[in-house]
């Protein structure tokens, strides 16, 4: 097989990289340039709405340099999980940016789009036939849950990407994809050792996350060979050490040794990490254990409702020491005000109000070991949610006033018990979403789940 050279532009397109690092990467003549575009890490909002995570400006800058670098070398450019969630809207957004750059810069290429949004009817059928199974921990799933999802994507492996390259695509923009698969696709096409290909990909997909002291998102390079891979950051000030590369398998994985991919499992438990110099590392003994049949992780988001937020500070000791009963009493009496306002159209089951107490257990909630300890002041965040935006905002405006003046037994007369740092106190947060799937599907026809489209650009 020899050697396959892989350039990772950055950990996430839109987060940036240094032009000098990327240019150094291009000078090393990579066989493929790739960059991941997303994850579920920012929450279900992007999948629910189709809105991207990073700015168009930041994304266009990164994509332009990548398209120009690709044009110089005429090698494939792969961008995965477009628009963060990898829904069809994210692919369309990235496609339009790519077309705009091609027009402005006079670039021409064959564009391959690989979509991974799933048809609800198909998923219901797979569920009925027992081919969707939960990953632990997973919420309950039913046909009704599939139906009420705003969008569902399946995380593709390397095969749909390889298929696009074999069909002649120069630039491949994908929907939701395994971050690793983007970087493993070309090495695997060229019969690289699967263990080294997948493990190198795992390090590459996060850009410079595997360096000793990551100063910013930046480019990184790997050489995948028969029984090992070498990895080196492209900024001369950045360094990889055996420990920093080994540590990278810890990041965001529940299990640092066995990393599941759509087509099998990367096993790093026997790996050896060796310094080639003070900046580059060689990794040997990575293993890939193929699964019997491909499985794809499903990600789904459904509307949780329309939310409003109210932030306030409390400094008064009397309120702080009874804050839970103060809030409970306030909510109980507020229900009567809601009845007055909406004349029964909105009842207690149609909305909810939550309070988070910063300075007590605001960050950790039920994991907080020091939950009983309170300082001299606390911050509170009230959130109000209902299925209708106008109802939520009406409730929020009334609740902010109601809570401000809610009495405590220690004082007689009208009090103002909340310090609002912003007015109006209530903020319209619009629609909010929840994740509703953590399942895998083992389809009878894997190829049918990912839809390919090709266009000649320029």
């Amino acid at each position, binding site marked *: 097989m020899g050697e396959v050279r892989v350039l990772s532009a950055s950990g996430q397109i839109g987060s940036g990289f240094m032009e000098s690092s990327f240019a150094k990467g291009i000078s090393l003549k990579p066989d493929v340039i790739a960059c991941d575009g997303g994850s579920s890490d920012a929450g279900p909002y992007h999948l629910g709405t189709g809105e991207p995570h990073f700015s168009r400006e930041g994304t266009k800058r990164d994509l332009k340099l990548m398209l120009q670098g690709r044009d110089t070398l005429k090698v494939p450019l792969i961008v995965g999980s477009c628009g963060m969630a990898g829904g069809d809207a994210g692919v369309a957004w990235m496609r339009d940016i790519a077309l705009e750059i091609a027009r402005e810069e006079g670039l021409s290429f064959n564009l391959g789009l690989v979509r991974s949004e799933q048809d609800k009817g198909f998923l219901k059928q797979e569920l009925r036939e027992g081919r969707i199974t939960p990953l632990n921990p997973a919420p309950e799933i039913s046909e009704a849950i599939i139906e009420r999802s705003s969008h569902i994507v399946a995380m593709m492996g390397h095969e749909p990407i390889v298929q696009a390259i074999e069909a002649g695509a120069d630039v491949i923009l994908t929907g939701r994809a395994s971050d690793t698969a983007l970087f493993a696709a070309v090495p695997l096409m060229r019969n690289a050792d699967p263990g080294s290909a997948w493990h190198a990909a795992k390090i590459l997909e996060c850009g410079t996350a595997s360096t000793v002291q990551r100063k910013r998102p930046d480019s990184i390079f790997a050489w995948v060979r028969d029984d090992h891979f070498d990895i080196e950051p492209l900024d001369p000030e950045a360094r990889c050490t055996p420990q920093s590369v080994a540590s990278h398998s810890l990041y965001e994985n529940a299990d640092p040794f066995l990393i599941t991919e759509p087509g099998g499992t990367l096993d790093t438990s026997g*790996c050896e990490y060796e310094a080639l110099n003070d900046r580059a590392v060689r990794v040997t003994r990575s293993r890939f254990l193929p699964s019997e049949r491909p499985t794809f992780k499903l990600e789904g988001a459904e509307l949780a409702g329309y939310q409003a937020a109210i932030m306030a500070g409390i400094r008064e000791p009397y309120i702080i020491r009874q804050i839970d009963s103060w809030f409970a009493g306030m909510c109980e009496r507020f229900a009567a005000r809601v009845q007055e306002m909406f004349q029964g159209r909105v009842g207690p089951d149609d909305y909810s109000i939550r309070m988070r107490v910063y300075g007590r257990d605001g960050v*950790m909630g039920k*994991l907080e070991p020091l939950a009983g300890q309170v300082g001299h002041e606390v911050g509170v965040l009230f959130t109000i949610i209902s299925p209708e935006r106008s109802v939520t905002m009406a409730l929020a405006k009334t609740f902010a006033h109601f809570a401000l003046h809610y009495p405590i037994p220690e004082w007689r007369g009208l009090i103002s018990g909340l310090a609002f740092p912003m007015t109006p106190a209530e903020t319209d947060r619009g629609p909010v979403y929840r994740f509703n799937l*953590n399942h895998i599907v083992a389809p009878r026809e894997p190829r049918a789940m990912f839809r390919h489209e090709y266009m000649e650009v320029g």
Partner: protein
Amino acid sequence: MATLGEMARLIRSKNAGPYMLTFDVMFEDEASYRRVIDAGVLTKAVFAKLYQVDEGEVIFFHHDAAKAIKISIPRPYVQCDLDDGDAYGGQQHAPLVELQVPG
């Protein structure tokens, strides 16, 4: 006595997908890594007690090549659910920082 925070090069928490939280305690050198393991200050049982979670739910690793102890648990609230206060899970490691390490 030193704290785990003083002995580690990095203690962090993060989401491992929307349904899991993971904690990494990473050391600079072999001696600190071994000292913490040998002292038994951070075990599956210690973690379960500190975080008030069922020991059966705690996944626990020693990663020698990274000189790291790693722990994963189901998220107490699904990421970004209405009761979740930490979208990235990045601030759940704090109680580990001040664990006392004898010796």
